[in-house]
């Protein structure tokens, strides 16, 4: 029997089950996203461990390098180098970093010798990091006094550091976190859908399907298909909650289409990851436990609720192998920045597709071997 027709039949079953519990499913998604958005609107992002900073060094003098390495030695600052100010500003605008530090060619004697751009998001850490940067810069510059309109509204003038506040999409942390919440709702629902394989398995439903002439792969494929539909519905709910709380998709209507595309790509990986967990565990309790651990880690490491660069460096490596990182990055470009650079599209989609293919293949393999 064709895998397509049996997948469609089983997908219809999944959707009928979804429909039977529609009110609960929608309410869950609505409340989760609403609670998170409400919660995060009032958190100033103070939980951030490291402030991500991009440095552009135009001076290339020994003192400028000393200045940057002294910044990097600060425990609360995580610094990355960039050669292009344009690229650095783009990262700032996309919410990937909080600061851009430009070391001007005349450093340390020119006035000003350091230019700082900082995001208007995360105000408490920002002011702290700004003071650190100013302090470090001051140690190198000849000028003895400095001024920051933001930090010290005094009459003292510090020509050495010129800081500029940059408006990133909007000024609230909830905007920054919104793409992360979209991604979270998608993976929660995908994992939930994938994990129900285990209840079907224990209840004997899968056996009742396998006695019919269907392809075994259809059991998994149907779940991924039905998850597509569910994900799309959940995205509508989250976007609605966002709209109500005043968060708008910066890219507009086209952006909404992008959000759907990214969400669907992401749901493939996580339905399959859940199916892998479901095929390796023997009861609902352990499957739920394992999947929750996995989901929480994927979510925290994805840069959804704080920038990846603010993670300790040894954890940042794990973010690279997290498919959710790329979905969050893509969503952030669309929702927050309002533009989706071609290089980002290519990388994000390539990696999401790759992870989808790998996890699906792996889950089908493990799943079939479990069914003999």
């Amino acid at each position, binding site marked *: *029997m064709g895998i397509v*027709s*049996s997948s*469609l*039949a*089983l997908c*219809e*079953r999944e959707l*009928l*089950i979804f429909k*039977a*519990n529609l009110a609960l499913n929608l309410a869950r998604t609505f409340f989760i996203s609403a609670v998170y958005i409400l919660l995060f609107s009032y958190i100033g992002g103070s939980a951030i461990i490291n402030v991500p900073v991009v440095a552009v060094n135009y001076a290339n003098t020994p003192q400028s390098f000393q200045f940057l390495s002294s910044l990097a030695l600060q425990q609360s600052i995580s610094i990355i180098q960039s050669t292009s100010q344009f690229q650095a500003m783009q990262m700032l605008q996309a919410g990937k970093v909080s600061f851009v530090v430009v070391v001007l060619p005349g450093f340390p004697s020119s006035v000003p010798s350091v230019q700082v751009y900082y995001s208007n998001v995360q105000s408490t850490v920002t002011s702290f990091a700004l003071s650190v940067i100013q302090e470090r810069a001051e140690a190198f510059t000849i000028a003895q006094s400095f001024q920051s309109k933001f930090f010290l509204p005094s009459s003292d003038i510090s020509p050495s550091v010129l800081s500029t506040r940059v408006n990133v999409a909007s000024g609230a942390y909830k905007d920054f976190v919104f793409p992360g919440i979209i991604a979270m709702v998608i993976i929660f629902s995908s994992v939930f859908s994938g994990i129900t394989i285990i209840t079907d*398995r*224990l*209840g*004997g*439903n*899968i*056996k*009742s*399907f*396998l*006695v*019919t*002439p*269907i392809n075994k792969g259809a059991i998994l494929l149907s779940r991924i298909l039905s998850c597509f539909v569910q994900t799309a519905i959940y995205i509508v709910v989250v976007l609605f909650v966002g709209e109500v709380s005043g968060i708008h998709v910066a890219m507009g209507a086209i952006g909404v289409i992008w959000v759907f595309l990214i969400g669907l790509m992401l749901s493939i990986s996580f339905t399959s990851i859940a199916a892998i967990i479901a095929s390796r565990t*023997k009861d609902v309790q352990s499957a739920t436990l394992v999947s929750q651990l996995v989901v929480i880690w994927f979510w925290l490491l994805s840069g959804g609720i704080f920038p990846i660069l603010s993670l300790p460096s040894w954890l940042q490596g794990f973010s690279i192998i997290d498919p959710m990182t790329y979905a969050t990055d893509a969503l952030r470009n669309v929702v927050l920045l309002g533009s989706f650079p071609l290089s980002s599209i290519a990388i994000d989609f390539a990696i999401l597709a790759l992870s989808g293919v790998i996890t699906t293949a792996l889950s089908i393999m493990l799943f079939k071997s*479990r*069914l*003999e």
Partner: protein
Amino acid sequence: MVAMGSRNMVEVQNLVKRFGSLTAVDHVSFQIHEGEIFGILGPNGAGKTTIINMLFNLLMPTSGKIRVSGIDISEEPFRVKRLLGLMTQETIVEADLTARENLRLFCKLYEIPSQEIDKRVQQGLEDAGLVEFADQRAGTFSGGMQRRLGLVRALIQEPKILVLDEPTSGLDIQNRNTMHNRIRELNRKGATIILTTQYLEEADILCDRIAIIDHGKMVAIGTPLQIKETTGSEKVLELVVGAQDTQRAISMLKSKFGISSVLQGDMIVALLDRKHEREFTRISKMLDSSGITVVSRSMHPPTLNDVFVKLTGARMRDRTGAMRGGQASVRWK
């Protein structure tokens, strides 16, 4: 029970299934003729469900062959699956789907042409007596209703062979009788039926032929009558005596009459041949006169249960250690 064809619908040859060190099915061979009700009888964990699962290609046999209607199952599993319908041990319905949606789903899985689906679903609902509940969720149905739905679902693709894995376990008497009548009716219409059960009476009244399975081995096969005759005895004696007299009564039966008996629970059970049959009154009197309190005494023709005792040395029982070969493993290794 009509139209007993000579053609073999199912042929099982030297079937073996091992799970690690456990041999769940051990060189089992049998044939099932067209149009008969064939019972596979055995205690829990005997290997019944393992055989059924191999018949449906859900488990690969370690060795041996299964042919259904002449088709080798390992070669053309999909063709075989179309000939078979299964009603599983546990009542499995899609709880969140309505009765109608349940049947539609399986029509689609069996690739029944879409123009025919509505007709078959309607027919199925009528057969199950669920027309007025057609659009209610199956999860809200009673056990008996779910079982009826399960049965029509197994029949939706009009299988030649219907496999019923413990169709009446957990049903009350009324539902059990309804199920028995339904099975007979289906058989009259020409379906070959394979039935696993642990109820001896059920096998006795329903089946044309029975295979008794224990420890994965087939210990007997034949009609219920043939199997009962294998005990070679005419009557079964059952005695219940006061607990303190049990051993005395057993040794007295042995020494005075040469009857060997076994203790099953509180009951002393002995198989009597024709000679001893006439001595029932004497045995009875002798026990009374030697001061043994006889609580109850009876003699009756052997039942399948007695056969089972003779063949396997025990009454029907659960064997948890062997569960792995049966239902537990099928859901997952």
